[in-house]
């Protein structure tokens, strides 16, 4: 049992290390000054080797050890980093990732033979490139670590704060067998166990450092507990590979002095995760070009997604009840004899509102994952695909720290891959073509993400050849998707929309990179499943931008409740710009179609009822209000019969039979208990 637990901890560690290493490698290829990166890759290999050895995974040890040797010679300056070595590192990474998957799934592990031959070839070939021998060389296989001595200022401050309070502080010193291979796992285990039974103020090294790969053989834990730290000591003693545990009261002597006299080299706000290990290498500043890094993720527990969904559902019910209570309160308040009770209930309802809102936000946040979790693989993917297409492409990520609901993230993974493939394969021109056009030889693809109101916008922009509306029209006509006459009438924007038609693909032939029979229509429907939207903007010769708009969460939204022919519909407020009362004489006609002029802008006016009957221009003089919204990025005024109000609604699925209806985003239960349909105005027409 312990074995499987160790294995799963190890595999998680490997997963993180591989992700980081992959980013590091892509980074390394771009910049020549990569000593800090080499150091980090070396450390990753070393950590994996250690874990593999403990678990008796000889193949993993063999590969990482060989790679470690090569990296060590680069680190010490005996050998130069060549493209051969970078390629080899990518191969090793792929092998490790297959190896990891095999361990996870219990499948067959990949053979080491071919890979080892390549590693040995590189090792042999490089022997004739001597550089002046290096001053300090770390003993091969021993990752450097800092002896726990100096307290980090943050911890020192926390200790001082704790000492100022009445409860005594204890210092638990745990010595581990330095020969034990899985030290970081052991340290982590000890920290977690002690944390469960005592109030841990901090430790040297910290839990985050241990998570980041530091492997000390001594651990200092500062704690407070009801039993003078006795149970903490016992727990630490019970951990495997622990050789000695001592417990002493801690009075903080010398702490104040050291804190005031000390000169911290690190400036606040310049904490570099890459330097966490305290490596004393000559390249402290090289860390600056490490762009993306998994930073301190805080203390975490794993929670089953189903449990989160259940909690969220319960919160949803709570939100509905809260709304009902406030409605009852206002009814009571409205009549004289019950006004006092009504006021009390209203106050209670306001309190309930605050609590449930915080609860709701908390659970919602628990469902969020950083965008980075799906973007991490893209730099490597772009690198591989562009070299396969013979193109030179710089890839930039912006806003990857944004967080999104996991359901949304899962739904946009494949679409983003598809969009990037398109950009690489069809968007960016070949280097020669670019030169001839007077463009820089290297193409550029930028994937950026940002918040806009309560949406997350993700944009993939390339500076390639752009899409020609005329060519798209021709192609659509040729494929019989549209008639020549209809095509002639389309605006450029409408022509671009054609790429989302099922069966459309402008590629002259399907290529390995982007032609897989999946089209932009699938991309669009994937996104619409999570209430997302996709738009394409393109200019011939200058490039294409694909814009995804995604909801922050799927579960609870604010919505405007409107009435139409006696039925209540919900429109998410994110897609409502404004609501107006409409008088019949304000309705103008433009080319025979109804329109409203709002502060100088013209909004085509359609009735909601007509839209839902697929006859948007249906004459209907009944509507009293207009909801200003957008459809396909163009303004639209929706005529409705009545406004009911704004509510927080819980989005529920409509089930398979009704899931793909155009203009319909789901259903909800209204405070009165009736179900209602949620409209998706962007696809209403």
């Amino acid at each position: 049992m312990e074995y499987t637990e160790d294995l799963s901890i190890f595999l998680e560690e490997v997963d993180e290390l591989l992700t980081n290493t992959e980013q590091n490698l892509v980074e390394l290829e771009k910049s020549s000054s990569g000593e800090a990166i080499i150091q980090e890759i070396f450390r990753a290999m070393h950590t994996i080797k250690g874990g593999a050895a403990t678990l008796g995974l000889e193949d993993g040890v063999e590969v990482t050890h060989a790679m470690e040797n090569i990296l060590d010679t680069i680190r010490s300056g005996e050998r130069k980093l060549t493209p051969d070595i970078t390629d080899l590192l990518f191969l090793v990474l792929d092998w490790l990732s297959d190896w990891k998957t095999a361990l996870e799934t219990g499948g067959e592990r990949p053979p080491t033979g071919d890979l080892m031959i390549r590693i040995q070839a590189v090792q042999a070939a490089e022997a004739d490139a001597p550089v002046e021998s290096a001053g300090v060389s770390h003993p091969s296989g021993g990752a450097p670590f800092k002896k726990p001595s100096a307290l980090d200022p943050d911890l020192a401050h926390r200790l001082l704060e704790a000492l100022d309070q009445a409860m005594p502080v204890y210092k638990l010193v745990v010595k581990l067998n330095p020969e034990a291979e899985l030290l970081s796992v052991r340290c982590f285990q000890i920290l977690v166990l002690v944390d469960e039974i005592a109030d841990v103020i901090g430790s040297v090294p910290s839990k985050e450092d241990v998570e980041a790969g530091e492997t000390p053989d001594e651990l200092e834990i500062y704690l407070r507990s009801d039993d003078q730290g006795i149970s903490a000591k016992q727990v630490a003693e019970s951990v495997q590979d622990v050789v000695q545990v001592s417990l002493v009261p801690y009075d903080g002597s010398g702490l104040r002095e050291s804190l005031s006299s000390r000169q911290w080299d690190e400036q606040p706000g310049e904490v570099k995760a890459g330097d966490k290990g305290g490596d004393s290498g000559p390249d402290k500043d090289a860390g600056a070009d490490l762009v993306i890094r998994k930073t301190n993720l805080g203390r975490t527990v794993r929670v089953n997604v189903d449990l989160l969904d259940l909690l969220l559902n319960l919160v949803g019910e709570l939100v509905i009840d809260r709304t009902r209570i406030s409605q009852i309160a206002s009814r009571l308040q409205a009549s004289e004899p019950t006004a006092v009770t009504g006021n009390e209930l209203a106050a209670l309802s306001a309190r309930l509102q605050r609590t449930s809102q915080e609860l709701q936000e908390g659970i919602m946040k628990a469902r969020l994952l950083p965008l980075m979790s799906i973007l991490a693989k893209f730099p490597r993917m772009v690198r591989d695909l562009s070299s396969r297409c013979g193109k030179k492409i710089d890839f930039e990520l912006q806003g990857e720290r944004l967080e999104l609901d996991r359901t949304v993230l899962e739904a946009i993974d494949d679409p983003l891959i598809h969009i990037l493939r398109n950009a690489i394969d069809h968007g960016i021109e070949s280097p020669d073509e670019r030169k001839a056009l007077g463009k820089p030889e290297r193409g550029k693809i930028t994937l950026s993400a940002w918040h806009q109101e309560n949406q997350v916008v993700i944009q993939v922009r390339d500076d390639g050849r752009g899409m020609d509306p005329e060519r798209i029209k021709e192609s659509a006509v040729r494929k019989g998707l549209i008639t020549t006459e209809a095509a002639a009438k389309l605006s450029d924007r409408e022509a671009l929309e054609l790429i989302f038609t099922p069966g459309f693909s402008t590629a002259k032939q399907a290529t390995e990179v982007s032609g897989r029979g999946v089209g932009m229509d699938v991309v669009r429907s994937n996104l619409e499943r999570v209430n997302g939207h996709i738009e394409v903007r393109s200019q011939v010769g200058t490039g294409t931008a694909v814009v995804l708009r995604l909801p922050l969460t799927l579960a609870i939204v604010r919505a405007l409740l409107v009435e139409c022919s006696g039925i209540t519909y919900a429109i998410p407020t994110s897609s409502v710009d404004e609501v107006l009362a409409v008088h019949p004489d304000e309705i103008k006609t433009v080319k025979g179609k109804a329109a409203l002029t709002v502060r100088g802008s013209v909004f085509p006016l359609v009735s909601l009822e007509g839209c839902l009957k697929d006859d948007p221009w249906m004459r209907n003089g009944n509507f009293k209000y207009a909801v200003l919204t957008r459809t396909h990025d163009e303004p639209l005024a929706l005529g409705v019969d009545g406004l009911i109000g704004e509510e927080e609604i819980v989005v529920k699925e409509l089930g398979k039979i009704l899931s793909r209806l155009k203009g319909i985003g789901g259903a909800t239960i209204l405070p009165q208990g009736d179900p209602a349909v949620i409209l998706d105005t962007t696809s209403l027409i």
Partner: protein
Amino acid sequence: MSSNQNTHEDTTKRETGHERQIVAFCLGSETYGVDIQKVREIIPIQKIVPVPRAPDFVEGIINLRGKVIAVLDLRKHFGFEKKEPTPEQRIVLTESDGERIGIIVDSVSSVLRISENSIEPPASVIAGDEVDYIQGIAKVNDSLIVLLDLTRIISDAERRTLKQVDLASALVK
């Protein structure tokens, strides 16, 4: 049929061992039956909110204890003429692939045990391949009960929806 007769029939059939329990309900003048194991619940008719653009055999959605459930009108599914709502109407809730779906019926008559021997395959009675959701016809006391496969009806409904949606999205304005 009297209850006496039923009890008698029950005991005789139990001896043979080849029988099944069905929920019998009426649609128009005909009696239909569904396997009791497919029926989760039978609830009185309640407020059904129409869903725009839904296929016409989907009557709308209801709120079943906080869940939104689609309700199908079997009359429309079978092409019967529309009927004004009556107090006898019920919604039979069934589950298919973990998804609950309601079916409106004119009235629920009873739960019956019928012998496998009394069930005839549909092909001998009705022709056509649109009837694969008819499992068979049972003869019970001189009356005929059409046994329906609810799972098939639902997958058939899903297929029809998809066809409708694909057609709609393939039409470029």
